[in-house]
């Protein structure tokens, strides 16, 4: 039986091919090079899968006769259509309502308010002007984020109700009281409602709340706090009724309290799956994609005690120089190095993940060692830019 994968990257496509002798790829036009298809084995359908009626007819008329084993996705904007198709086909999957409660940040807040209010923060849903007024003044400001945003795009820190009122497309934003504290992300795997914590990472962010590093395991989380984070994750997933599959949950810890920032029924992005593999031996992409086929996380010998993905950033301007990959790092190893720009490219303001200019993966004997190596690396000095007037 075939496996249907929605919104695959090249990496995910290869994982899918390792899971099934036949893969049906459902992609947005131009998002997957057809060379990756296995000859006379894999199939490809390219269309805008964000259109629900198109997805429904596709599932009923094209997929139903193929009787696939499962429809899966680990891509944010494809989680909803994958669940929709699974529901129509009756294949194992996270129910659509659960996916939507996790993807829709306002819905997630409402569920949390009802079932686990201690994990939430004061918020105002889209169009709820009264609640929005009540959020101000707030000690740390108010976060505005698109209800279905991804990649840290368009997240704003507001200081006044007037700023909120002035936002274009204000009715598509969720407003939340800013939660202070250190931020962590949790990779978890659920089976029949039992949530296994696969790994925890410590997150660093830069301007515009764009993620600039993920350190696994966290350096700034003692045993007690880690237990709190794990417990909070389980309560959250119970509240949202996620019973099966992977989840990536972001939380903040401050003065002994844990607040949920957001959660998704997929593995974390930014190469977090590679950190999981390095530190736990678990092939997290394979588990996340293959769980409806029975694939489960199996801990093995990780190749490193700690690992970090650190992203390179640069000031806006024209790229004038790019540092060489260092041959060695003090007390750590450089496991990966990618620079996404070349001299002459223009770098913009850091507004989303796509504005980062490269990435390194560092492994070491401890999280502290990784952290020191990242400081030595200087991720904001790898790419040099020169301010230019356009």
């Amino acid at each position, binding site marked *: 039986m075939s496996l249907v994968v929605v919104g695959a990257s090249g990496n995910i496509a290869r994982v899918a091919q390792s899971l099934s002798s036949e893969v049906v790829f459902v992609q947005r036009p131009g998002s997957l090079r057809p060379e990756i298809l296995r*000859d*006379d*084995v894999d199939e490809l359908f390219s269309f805008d899968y964000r259109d629900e009626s198109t997805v429904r007819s596709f599932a009923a008329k094209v997929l139903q006769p193929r009787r696939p084993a499962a429809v899966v996705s680990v891509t944010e904007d494809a989680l909803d259509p994958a669940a929709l198709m699974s529901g129509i086909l009756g294949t194992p999957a996270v129910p659509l309502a659960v996916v939507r409660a996790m993807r829709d940040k306002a819905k997630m807040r409402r569920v949390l308010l009802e079932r686990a209010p201690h994990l939430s923060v004061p918020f105002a849903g889209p169009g709820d002007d009264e609640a929005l007024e009540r959020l101000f003044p707030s000690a740390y400001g108010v976060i505005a984020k698109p209800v279905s945003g991804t990649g840290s795009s368009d997240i704003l820190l507001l200081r006044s109700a007037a700023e909120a009122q002035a936002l274009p497309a204000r009715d598509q934003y969720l407003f939340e009281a800013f939660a202070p504290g250190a931020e962590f992300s949790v990779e978890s795997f659920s089976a029949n409602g039992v949530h296994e914590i696969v790994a925890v990472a410590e997150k660093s962010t830069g301007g515009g709340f764009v993620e600039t590093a993920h350190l696994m395991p966290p350096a700034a989380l003692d045993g007690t706090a880690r237990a709190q984070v794990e417990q909070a994750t389980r309560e959250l997933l119970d509240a949202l009724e996620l019973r099966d599959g992977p989840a990536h949950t972001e939380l903040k810890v401050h003065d002994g309290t844990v607040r949920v920032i957001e959660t998704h029924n997929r593995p974390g992005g930014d190469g977090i799956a590679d950190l999981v593999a390095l530190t736990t031996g678990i092939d997290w992409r394979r588990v996340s994609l293959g769980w409806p086929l029975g694939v489960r996380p199996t801990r093995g010998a990780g190749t490193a005690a700690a690992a970090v993905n650190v992203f390179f950033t640069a000031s806006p301007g024209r790229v004038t120089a790019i540092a060489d990959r260092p041959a060695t790092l003090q007390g750590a190893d450089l496991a990966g190095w990618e620079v996404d720009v070349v001299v002459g490219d223009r770098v913009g303001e850091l507004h989303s993940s796509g504005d980062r200019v490269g990435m390194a993966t560092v492994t070491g004997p401890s999280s502290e060692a990784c952290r020191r190596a990242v400081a030595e690396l200087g991720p904001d000095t790898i790419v040099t830019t020169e301010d230019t007037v356009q």
Partner: protein
Amino acid sequence: MRTLILNRHVLTWATGDRGGHLPAAPEDRFLLTRTYGGGLAGYDASVFPHLTVVDTYFADRLEAAARWLVETHRIQRIVALHEKDLLLAASLREDYGLPGPDVGTTLRFRDKVLMKDTLRAAGYSGLPRYCALEPGEELTAVPWEGRTVVKSRWGLGAEQVRIVDDLAAANAAARELEAGGDQIEAEEFVTGAMYHCDSVVRDGRILFTAVSRYLTPPGAFKPGGVSGSVVLTGGAVRESLLAENEHVLGILSPGSAVTHVEFFRRPSGELVFCEAAARPPGAGISGLLHTAYGVDVVRAAVELQSGVEPTLPATIAQPPHATGLILVYPSAGGEDRFAEDLRDRVPGVRSYHYSPPQSPGRVRHAADVAHKAVLTADTEAELDRRLALVLDVVRAPQTNAPEGSHAAPNR
């Protein structure tokens, strides 16, 4: 004009360089193709942004995908060039009220019994003797003498054709072909040379016809074998074939299409209908015609199915040279290689294409060729000499040959 392209050919052959055969803008092209056989050759997402790739081995999957695409994208035209896709395209057109060849028209060019029944009903006299067989029916007698051809009513590429000497062998061949799901006919084996007439027809009016003689019958493909065609530029045989072709097309009524009609010519000079198809000819013949006349019959077919006037030269003159196509099938031993010095060693080579065998040592159908070359010469005798020279060169051991680019099929 939102157009669905059902493709099983090498993509660039069917749609032209960067989809240039198609009168539709890239955003209006919906390509349904396969990986196998170059179905994605030269694929460019900017040329075909809407891409669907299926395993065409499963007809039901192909049809489900095609129907969904037509419904979802409100397709206005369907283009299909491969014999196996013509009926599906016609069926979709009828079901969704789209212009272009309908099922009735297409059947007259697909069902080898129906096409002959139609010709016979119209009083056409140039038919071989033939009979359709019901499933499991045993032949107890045939109204002809000599050898018998047993073949699928729906076959293509001369793949499902068996030539047998007696009734026992005929029945065995029928059962063998039936086991593959085919409907069967039997007809007399006609001795004589074979010819093909390739035409561009617009609203029933023949705009262009090329007459060519096969070097060997299409059914004679075998490992290491040779086939091909030579264009007839004049003479009584050509004139009689033009008339016969016009007569046949007048009865079968393709509407607007490129057609490929085959005839036998008995030693007595009598012409006998073999079969007709409403699609461009395969196995390199389109390249032969382009060299001889400057007419791109593949482009014309795409344009006709798209509902626009076919692109033809303002004046189509008879070619000043003798023009021929030679096809060399994969060798039994699988030692085929690109003949890199062919153009140096054979004068008049106008095009040469090497396809690494998809099933080494085996030839699956008449178009499953390894070497394909189009040549010209001042005289027919010289052309014959050059065609023979091509054979010598491609059969000679090759060195430093590039690797083939086509992946091996899974089935």
